[in-house]
């Protein structure tokens, strides 16, 4: 436990040394409230930074959602995602219709944890944000009390573009906006587009 926390601290230190990242709480404050942080996704450093910039008291109640195929591939990744980050793994590419990929997320929410979620589903290859997958909508619908906090992550696509092995040290800014709520009778596509737009509109 202690070792896992130390490993987490060390990784956060490295990531911050490289990126000089800082959190800009514009629309919301770091408060002990159950939340789902949703952000644009461009590199493997994304959730490490978002997770690492939360105050420790919140950090250990906040679990990043990550792809099972990638994180279960090697022993080191398995150790990091299960023990250090306490991630929630989802299977990408649904095998049959009965299988609900959001079930592990819902279980974590029911247990009172906050989540870090990337609604694009994968890291963007270009500098453009991809359209959101429907997961965010279903989670919002099933959990009306959950605060959906948008986070804009700037420059991470330049620090470590998809496919590159080594990160370039550039300053990253994480801007936390005001929580977004699903409107009464709002359609799936309208909600997803609105949620995506809040991230695009967030400026430091």
């Amino acid at each position, binding site marked *: 436990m202690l070792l896992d926390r130390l490993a987490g601290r060390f990784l956060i230190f490295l990531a911050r040394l490289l990126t000089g990242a800082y959190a800009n709480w514009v629309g919301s404050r770091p408060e002990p409230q159950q939340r789902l942080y949703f952000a644009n996704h461009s590199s493997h450093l994304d959730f490490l930074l978002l997770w690492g910039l939360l105050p420790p008291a919140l950090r250990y109640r906040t679990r990043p959602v990550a792809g099972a195929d990638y994180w279960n591939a090697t022993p080191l990744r398995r150790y990091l995602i299960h023990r250090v980050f306490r991630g929630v793994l989802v299977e990408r590419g649904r095998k049959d219709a009965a299988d609900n990929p959001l079930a592990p997320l819902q279980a974590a929410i029911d247990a009172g944890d906050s989540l870090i979620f990337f609604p694009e589903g994968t890291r963007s290859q270009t500098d453009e944000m991809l359209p959101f997958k429907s997961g965010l909508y279903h989670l919002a619908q099933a959990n009306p009390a959950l605060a959906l906090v948008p986070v804009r992550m700037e420059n991470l696509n*330049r620090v470590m573009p998809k496919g590159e092995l080594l990160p*370039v040290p550039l300053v990253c800014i994480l801007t936390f906006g005001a929580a977004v709520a699903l409107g009464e009778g709002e359609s799936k596509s309208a909600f997803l587009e609105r949620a995506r737009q809040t991230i695009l509109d967030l400026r430091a």
Partner: protein
Amino acid sequence: MSLASSLPVISSNVPEAARVQTLTLFMGIGAVLLFASVVGWLLRWRLGAGNAVVANLNARINAWWVMVAVIGLALLGGRTGVVVLFGLVSFFALREFLTLTHTRRGDHLALLACFFLFLPLQYLFIWHDWYGMFSIFVPVYAFLLMPFLSCLGSDTTNFLARATQTQWGLMICVYAISHVPALLALQIVGFEDRNLLLIVFLILVVQSSDVLQYVWGKLFGRHKIAPNVSPSKTVEGFIGGIASATALGASLWWITPFSPLAAAGMALLITLTGFVGGLVMSAIKRDRGVKDWGHMIEGHGGMLDRLDSVCFSAPVFFHAVRYFYVS
């Protein structure tokens, strides 16, 4: 003098010849900062904790304490301490600079080379005293190799602009800043083992000039020099700041190889180039649409906000000293 010379030897890395003078200087700087802190406390007490200008002033003074402490620690580490400190300073400055440039995915390798190849090599050459290499490494070898690395990304969109901006970052943040520790390599007859004091002279005079220009400008500033580039720079601040910093430099002649008159001349030279640096770096910030280079130092902004003047004055000071004092 007597107090400084009676203190125990903390680090054997600071040569005996420079020890007493360095200690005396740092005690002087400590006294000035203590005075500033007391004034800051009084202002906060009189005007209240909610006053933004006073809060910023106090944040700046506190940051000065930290910066002086960091420089003092580096000096205790002698040559290696100074080279490592300015290597890190270059790293943070380059990080701030390149964050604001418009590089593309194809530049990834070139950017990696800037941080993890060119920067460490430049400081290694400085540490080794290899003048023939460190004085040309960035403008010749890095200059020619870096655009080639960008070519490997096979993306020609804005190629010249991207390459140019990255070159600028390297020149300012690595090459120029590395001339501060390079002062240790100068061999001046009669000034052996005291080169650390040249660094102290350079930084103290240039930074004081920035502060004095700010103070004179706040007190008497009327006519703006370049309102579109830097709204805080005024003719009154410029004249008062440069003149008083030059006087300060002249009064520090005893820690340098210069005569009092030459110390004034050197101080004038580096405060003028420092002013130019502040203006040019400010123009880049305006172009990029930001107020500060970063947020590393509370109250000051980024590393480059504090070092813009030193970036420009360090190479000029290095070559002026080398031309006039190294036989």
